[in-house]
């Protein structure tokens, strides 16, 4: 990717719009990082989590729309919704490809549907105030999760280890296009949360609930995919040690750095623009084969 000339700067007031990307998975190998089933499946958890998760983001933000009183923030939220909808669809298509290769993701997806539709979904019979508070609370969950998606996106944009390992170029483009849009829109959920509730407690609760949940879902996902992979027959077992080793080789984000990043979210003066570089993300979006093909559609 092209080098950016000087220190990353904050880009203000970006216009956000979805990009109509398409990917062709017909030639994706099951282990798209060659000979690295553990790293492949650790990243594959994204394809399990994101379709249901991002569709849930979209529902939460649609519910929040009537609460927004600022025109610019509303436009950013609408741009965010469109981007998330496209992300969900792009990852869903990878799941279909996994199934076609004999790895059945449906038991795990069924649990996520339950989580995002039943446990975290809209619930009948609440008072108007409880309903409103639930919308704001879910926005706070989304804001905390978006901190991690921006962290991961920033990692994906700076992961030469994946290139060295000759990971599948289409999958790398999916991860980096998605990661770049996450960096591009990293402030929206946070700004929306602060607009609806500037209280520090809300932000903390968002992270305290969703941070550990995300980690737990991820660990369960890795274990599930390794067990469900028909070519491994349970030979590869997940461990934090294996994750750190893979991180050292540049295949995965470092678990300790991920944890530290989660803690930064709790700092009183935190703002998402302190993490990642918009210039790098936008430059990748102007380079990405999928994003470039989207404009001529």
């Amino acid at each position: 990717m092209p080098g950016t000339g000087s220190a990353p700067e904050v880009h203000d007031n970006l216009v956000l719009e979805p990009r109509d990307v398409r990917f062709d998975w017909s030639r994706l190998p099951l282990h798209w990082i060659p000979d690295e089933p553990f790293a492949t499946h650790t990243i594959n958890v994204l394809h399990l989590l994101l379709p249901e998760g991002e569709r849930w983001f979209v529902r939460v933000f649609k519910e929040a729309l009537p609460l927004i009183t600022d025109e610019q923030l509303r436009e950013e939220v609408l741009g965010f919704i469109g981007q998330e909808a496209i992300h969900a669809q792009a990852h869903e298509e990878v799941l279909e490809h996994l199934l076609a290769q004999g790895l059945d993701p449906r038991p795990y997806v069924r649990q996520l549907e339950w989580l995002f539709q039943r446990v975290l979904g809209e619930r009948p019979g609440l008072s108007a105030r409880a309903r409103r508070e639930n919308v704001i609370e879910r926005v706070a969950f989304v804001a905390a999760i978006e901190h991690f998606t921006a962290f991961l996106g920033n990692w994906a944009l700076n992961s030469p280890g994946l290139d060295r390992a000759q990971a599948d170029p289409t999958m790398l483009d999916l991860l980096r296009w998605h990661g770049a849009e996450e960096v591009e829109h990293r402030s929206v959920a946070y700004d929306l949360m602060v607009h609806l509730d500037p209280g520090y407690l809300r932000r903390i609760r968002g992270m305290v609930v969703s941070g550990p949940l995300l980690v737990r879902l991820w660990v369960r996902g890795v274990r599930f995919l390794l067990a469900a992979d028909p070519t491994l027959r349970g030979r590869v077992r997940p461990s934090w040690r294996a994750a750190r080793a893979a991180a050292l080789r540049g295949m995965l984000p470092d678990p300790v750095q991920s944890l530290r990043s989660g803690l930064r979210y709790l700092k009183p003066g935190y703002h998402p623009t302190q993490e990642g570089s918009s210039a790098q993300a936008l430059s990748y979006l102007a380079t990405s084969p999928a994003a470039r093909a989207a404009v001529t559609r």
Partner: protein
Amino acid sequence: MDRTNPQAPPDLYGRPQADPFMRRLTAFGDRYTPALGSRGLRRNPRLPAPRALPALVLVVTGHRPVAEDVVELRLADPSGGVLPGWQPGAHLRLTLPSGRERHYSLCGDPADRTSYRIAVRRLADGGGGSREIHDELHLGVRLTVRRPRNGFPFCGEQRLLLLAGGIGVTPLLPIAREAQRRGLDWHLVYAGRTLATMPFVEELRALAPERVTLLVGRIPSGAELLESARPGSAVYCCGPAPMLAAVQRALDESPAGTLHFERFAAAPITDGKPFTVQLGADGPTLDVPADRSALDVLREARPDLPYSCHQGFCGTCRLHVLSGTPEHRDRRLTSEERADGALLPCVSRAAEGDRLVLDI
């Protein structure tokens, strides 16, 4: 998914039992959700209510021709206050005295916080906004202006090829200035009909004459525009739609791998006929004219209607048709979804005079 089923989903490994983790999550959610709104789990009522940043009201402090059919406008705070900052590539949305809204790229210096500069070409066959600016925005006229937004952000790549077509030079001028300030390797190719119609040529040459190439009097091909691209060049293109399309087509054959341009969400409606939409079986009926989308018309009645891409691919504005025959123009919905009554009102329409009854 069956919402009424109280049982958590089964275990991941085929054991015939509800997953204990899912059961615990469900129990947690069943307590947490209704508890929100109680003391300690609600928005502190003493905190200020959500506020909107007000739009700016600016006064015209400069109005002068800078090329044939191009005027430069300076806008400032009436009391001389400091204006919100902006970055190269940003634009303003002006609300003209007639109520028309127009977007123009900022072409001044971001370091100047006392005035905004834009340049406007008079379009004889436009919607009248540019004529109004040329003929009626005299010194002292006040305008409502939205704060700067950026749809063409500059990423500061080391090697830059800036391609300007006519009035499209406006956002590239601050980009070129910033590139020069940072000492980047930039080159600007500026195409126009005649030299007299091309604004800011001298200003660009004053930055670095050897970095500016003029192509005057003919429409250059994409390959010609990209001629000076080198490996790793990042291209920033702003000009008429055919020029951008030509550059996009030629990019794969050039050594440049990066193309930045400003995206304009809504493509003009082609071959649209007027029809009507009804909001619910007993709701009001609204007319959708040939040159507007159903979404635009619906948003006037329902401002909270979600939408995003305006182009029929993201699916955010999806609605359900209760009756009527839609003319689908989206690229998102499957034939099953369409048969089931789904509709994307940002692009889809109906035959002339038909009515779509929508579930909203």
